[in-house]
C-alpha cells in the first residue's frame, strides 16, 4: 500500500513506510480508546494510504453510488499545521445499535435530529481519534471544526454529489487515508476517508524525513 505512495513520488520509500507505521499506530491507539469509551466497538481494518489526484473523485463517486442505495455522510474539517477533510460514510444504519454503542438513552426520542446526532457523535469520535493520533505522532498541530451532516439517509447519488460539491477543488496529488470500521454484531461497514490538504504535504514530508534520518 505504501508502494503507491513512493511510486507516485509524494514521499520516498522510507518516508512512505514510516507514514504507514504512523497511521497504523494512530489507528491502533484510536481503536483502543474507542473500545474503552464505547461498548461493543469497533473493528478497524488496516487503513489504506494512497496518493491521489483530483480524478479520484470520479472513481470514489462511482464506487459509492454502486455500493450503496442510500447513505448518510458526515463531514468534518481539521485545520492548522495538519489540515484536511474527513468524510464518514454510513450505509443503512441501525440507530438502535448506534444508541447502544454510544450509551445514549431514549429520552430525546428517535426523530431525525436525534439520529443525525448519533451519526455526528460516532463520526466525530472516529475522525478526531484518528486525526489526533496522526497529528501527535508527527508533532503537527491541528484542530477539528464541528462536524456536520452533509446528507441524511439520502440516495447515494445525491449524497455524494453534495459531499464533493462542497469540497475545495485541488490540483496535483494529495494524500488520502481510507479506513473501514465495523460495530460489533453490526454487518454494515462504515467508511472513513481522510484527505490531507496539499498545502501541508511539504511539512508532513519534512517531519517524516526528519524521523527517517533520526
Amino acid at each position, binding site marked *: 500500500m505504501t508502494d503507491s505512495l513512493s511510486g507516485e513520488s509524494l514521499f520516498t520509500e522510507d518516508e512512505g513506510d514510516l507514514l504507514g507505521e504512523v497511521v497504523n499506530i494512530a489507528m491502533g491507539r484510536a481503536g483502543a480508546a474507542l473500545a474503552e469509551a464505547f461498548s461493543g466497538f469497533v473493528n478497524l481494518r488496516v487503513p489504506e494510504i494512497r496518493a491521489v489526484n483530483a480524478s479520484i473523485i470520479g472513481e470514489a463517486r462511482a464506487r459509492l453510488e454502486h455500493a450503496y442505495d442510500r447513505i448518510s455522510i458526515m463531514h468534518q474539517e481539521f485545520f492548522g499545521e495538519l489540515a484536511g477533510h474527513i468524510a464518514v460514510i454510513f450505509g443503512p444504519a441501525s440507530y438502535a445499535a448506534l444508541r447502544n454503542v454510544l450509551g445514549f438513552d431514549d429520552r430525546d426520542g428517535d426523530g431525525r435530529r436525534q439520529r*443525525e446526532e448519533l451519526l455526528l457523535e460516532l463520526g466525530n469520535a472516529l475522525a478526531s481519534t484518528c486525526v489526533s493520533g496522526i497529528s501527535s505522532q508527527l508533532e503537527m498541530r491541528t484542530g477539528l471544526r464541528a462536524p456536520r451532516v452533509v446528507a441524511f439517509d439520502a440516495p447515494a447519488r445525491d449524497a455524494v454529489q453534495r459531499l464533493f460539491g462542497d469540497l475545495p477543488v485541488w490540483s496535483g496529488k494529495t494524500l488520502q487515508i481510507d479506513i473501514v470500521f465495523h460495530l460489533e454484531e453490526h454487518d454494515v461497514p462504515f467508511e472513513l476517508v481522510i484527505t490531507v490538504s496539499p498545502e501541508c504535504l511539504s511539512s508532513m514530508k519534512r517531519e517524516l524525513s526528519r524521523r527517517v534520518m533520526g
Partner: protein
Amino acid sequence: MDAQQRVAFDYPSIVANLLTVGMVAVDRRFAIVVWNRFMELNSNIRSEEVLGKNLFEVFPELNRNWLEKKIKSCLVLKTPSFSSWRQRPYLFRFKASPVLAGEAEFMYQDVSIFPIHDESCTVQGACVVIHDMTELANAVRLLDQTQDRALDLEELNQRDSLTGIYNRKFFDEQITQGVLSSRRHNWPLSMAMIDIDHFKLINDTYGHPGGDMVLRHLAARLQSMLRASDTFCRYGGEEFALILPHVAQHDARSLLDRLRLAIENLVIDLPDGGQVSVTVSVGVAQLQEGQTSGHLVSCADEALYESKHAGRNRVSCYPIAK
C-alpha cells in the same frame, strides 16, 4: 524571560471575564471548577454560588445521561466533542438577546467540549464551551420561511384563481418546453383545446355565480381524470387547454372522448339550488415535424372550430378529414 514571569497577571481572570463565550469546566466527578462571566450573566448565578458543586445538582434540567456520556467519552478519547444547535437547540436554557432573538424563545447554542489535564498531562476534567448561535439560527429560519413563501408565490403565480388549475401563462411556458423535449427525445406530443358549448347562455340564465360554478366543477372533473404528467390549464373564458406528453393523436382522441362523455354526464349543483349539465367541444392535434408550439395550438384551434361547426359536443382531430 516569558511574560508570565515579568508581569503578575491574574490569569484565571482572563477566562473568568470572558463575556462572549460561555465556559464551564468540570472535574472528573462533574464538580464545577470554572464558571465564567458569560455563564454568570446569562444564568443569573454567580460563580461563588456554583464552584465546587455538582453540575447536574445545580442544573437538574440538563440532560444528564447525554451530557455525562458525552463528557466521559471526551475524557477517554482525549479529543474534542461537539453539539450543534441544528440537532440540539441548546444545552443551558438561557434567554436570548431581544435584539437578536427575533421569534426565538431561548438562546440557540453550539457546544464544544474538550478535555483538560493537569501539569503531568493526566486528563482531569472537561471544559464545556457555549457559543450563542441565536443570530444564525434566526437567519436560517427566516431564509427557510422566505424560500417557502417564494415557492408558494411561484405556485400561486401559475394557477388560475377561479378554478385552481394552471393558468394561461403556465400553459405558454409548458407548451414551449413540451415541444422542445418532444423534439429532443423524439417522443410524441399531443394537445387539446376544450371549449364549453353555449357558455354565454349559462351566464345569461344563471348569472355569473352559476357560470363560475360550472367552470369550477368542470375543471375539477377533468383534472381528476388526468395523469400527473398531463398539464391542464384554463386558457381563457370558457376555454381550456390540455398538454399530453408521450401521447400520439390516436390515443389523445380516445382520452378526449372519455373526458367529453364524463362532462356530458356531469350534473352540476348551482348556488340557487338548481342543477345544470353542459357539453364541451374539443379539438386535438399532434405535434408534427418542424412545427412550433404556436403552430400546434393553431391546429388544435382549427380542430375545435370544426367540432363547433359540426354540431358541438364532439372531438375533432387535425388535420380535418374533408
